């Protein structure tokens, strides 16, 4: 009986401990969110700037002071910079990712399974700083020479670096999505005399569309949150880019290069925190979008069956 008592005590102890581990996950998330909201909202509550100014004004010159709102905290340039670079990166990366994913699953599944997919998946893990550094030493001079520009740091260069970086992420999710399409779909279409390209275009891609969208959004989220690789190649000018070959700044690059020069609690510091809060909100939005799309995809799949 003595032994059994000890046994049950152990049982409860471990159950308690494991539950605490689960709860800690919630605590960490809430603490991070709360800190971000607390620090990020101070620009608006403590310094009296309006959210409209933060989102839509292009004038960014906050002061290093602890009180009063003498400076301006418009982050529109950085928001536009982020959206433009990531959008361009996605435009470059998506067609190639899709083509690679289709090649791996539909055209040469044997080679794709054995060699291509492992190679792509390994590249998901390459540190972004390596992409950034290679972009800085190789792409920046190359873009400068090819397009005859005074400087190679530009939105286009940053988009190229990001595109290369998110290509493996999108490809591996899209591959899984396409592989998940039941082969009966393909067999039916083949039976009707379709060519392979017709099947890919009209059957496989539509059936895998929600999975592919998830991959694209995951890639977009990765690109949006990337800081240092972008900061290395985009230049540091704080004006709207005239075209894709001029340099600008993004939300992440501004935080990364300026946070170290500010003091905690100043207007400048708070403005940077507000941008971090904005990044947090955007990443939540991406999660919501993924859930929405996959729920829709499931509904469609269930409705058809």
């Amino acid at each position: 009986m003595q032994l059994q008592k000890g046994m049950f005590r152990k049982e409860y102890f471990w159950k308690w401990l494991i539950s605490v581990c689960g709860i800690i996950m919630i605590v960490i998330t809430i603490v991070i969110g709360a800190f971000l909201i607390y620090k990020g909202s101070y620009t608006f509550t403590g310094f009296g700037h309006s959210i409209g100014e933060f989102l839509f004004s292009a004038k960014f010159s906050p002061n290093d002071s602890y009180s009063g709102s003498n400076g301006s905290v418009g982050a529109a340039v950085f928001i536009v910079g982020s959206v433009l670079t990531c959008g361009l990166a996605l435009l470059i990366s998506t067609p190639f990712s899709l083509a690679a994913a289709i090649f791996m699953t539909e055209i040469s599944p044997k080679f794709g399974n054995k060699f291509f997919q492992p190679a792509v998946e390994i590249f998901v893990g390459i540190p972004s700083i390596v992409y950034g550094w290679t972009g800085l030493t190789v792409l920046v001079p190359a873009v400068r020479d090819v397009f005859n520009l005074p400087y190679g740091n530009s939105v286009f260069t940053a988009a190229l670096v990001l595109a290369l970086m998110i290509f493996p992420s999108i490809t591996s999710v899209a591959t899984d999505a396409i592989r998940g399409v039941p082969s009966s779909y393909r067999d039916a279409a083949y039976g009707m005399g379709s060519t392979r390209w017709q099947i890919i275009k009209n059957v496989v891609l539509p059936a895998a569309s929600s999975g592919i969208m998830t991959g694209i959004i995951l890639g977009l989220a990765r690109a949006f949150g990337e800081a240092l690789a972008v900061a290395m190649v985009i230049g540091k000018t704080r004006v709207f880019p005239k075209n894709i070959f001029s340099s600008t700044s993004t939300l992440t690059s501004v935080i990364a290069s300026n946070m170290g020069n500010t003091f905690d609690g100043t207007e400048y510091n708070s403005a940077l925190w507000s941008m971090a809060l904005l990044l947090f909100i955007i990443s939540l939005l991406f999660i919501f979008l993924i859930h929405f799309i996959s729920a829709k995809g499931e509904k469609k799949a269930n409705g058809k069956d």
Partner: protein
Amino acid sequence: MEKIKQAKLEDKIMTIVFYIVAGFFLILLLVFASYVIIKGFSGATSQMFTFTSKGVLNQLFNTIYLVLLSLLLSCPLGIGAGIYLAEYAKRGKLTETIQICIETLSSLPSIVVGLFGYLAFILMTGMKWNLFAGALAVSILCLPLITTTTFDAVRALPDYYRYGSMGLGATKWQTTYHVLIPSCMPRIVTGIILAAGRGFGEAAALLYTSGMSTDINWSNWNITSPLCPLNPFRPGETLSLHIWASFTEATAANAKDIANLSSAILMILVLMFNITVRIISKRIDERAGGGK
């Protein structure tokens, strides 16, 4: 007839296009990897392979030490949370909340985690930049990865493992500890290695937590001294931060070569880790497929 011909032609053209695109990207990735590695080592001097301020081995040591520290923190917590979700949690509001939280954590931009770490572990504790704060920040990034792999691994175990163990009179925890965890250990290890790989390359989260300087003395083994290599409360620059530093500061004349070498070492580390994961998971598949 014309239509069929056209469809066939289109099919041929698209097949060629797919071959070209896929081949192009495969070659691009391989060229990228070999370029980084070859470039790094071709510009290296013997001085760079020393434990001095001109070498990169101190940074390599910092990187490995920081990742180990962060794994020490995130492994028990992540594995615990994964097991809780898979075995103990009842379906309901709490479990859902935890899952949403994990998803939120995994999608946090690393610069945001870095800022949070700067505020919570540096400013609020009043410490200087240190390795331990960096390890905490990296743990936040590793946690969701370890938790989800553990959760998936435990969930994937067939129910008769549980029935068999409980039928012999084992309690729930005994079943979990003696049967479930050992049988999915290889998969959990895969997750941990992937998390470590992520830690190696992390830079943005460390920018304002672990500091950009390394000042250690390899003959000093007093762990409370800020010069001791093993003291976790000293500033420690990792390899990836070293690359960033040579972009922003570029103090040394050969900063470019040093950064090239650092990139090459990082690349090799990550490739090594990922290939190890491949080999392990292949073994698991073989065993599950009836090889043993």
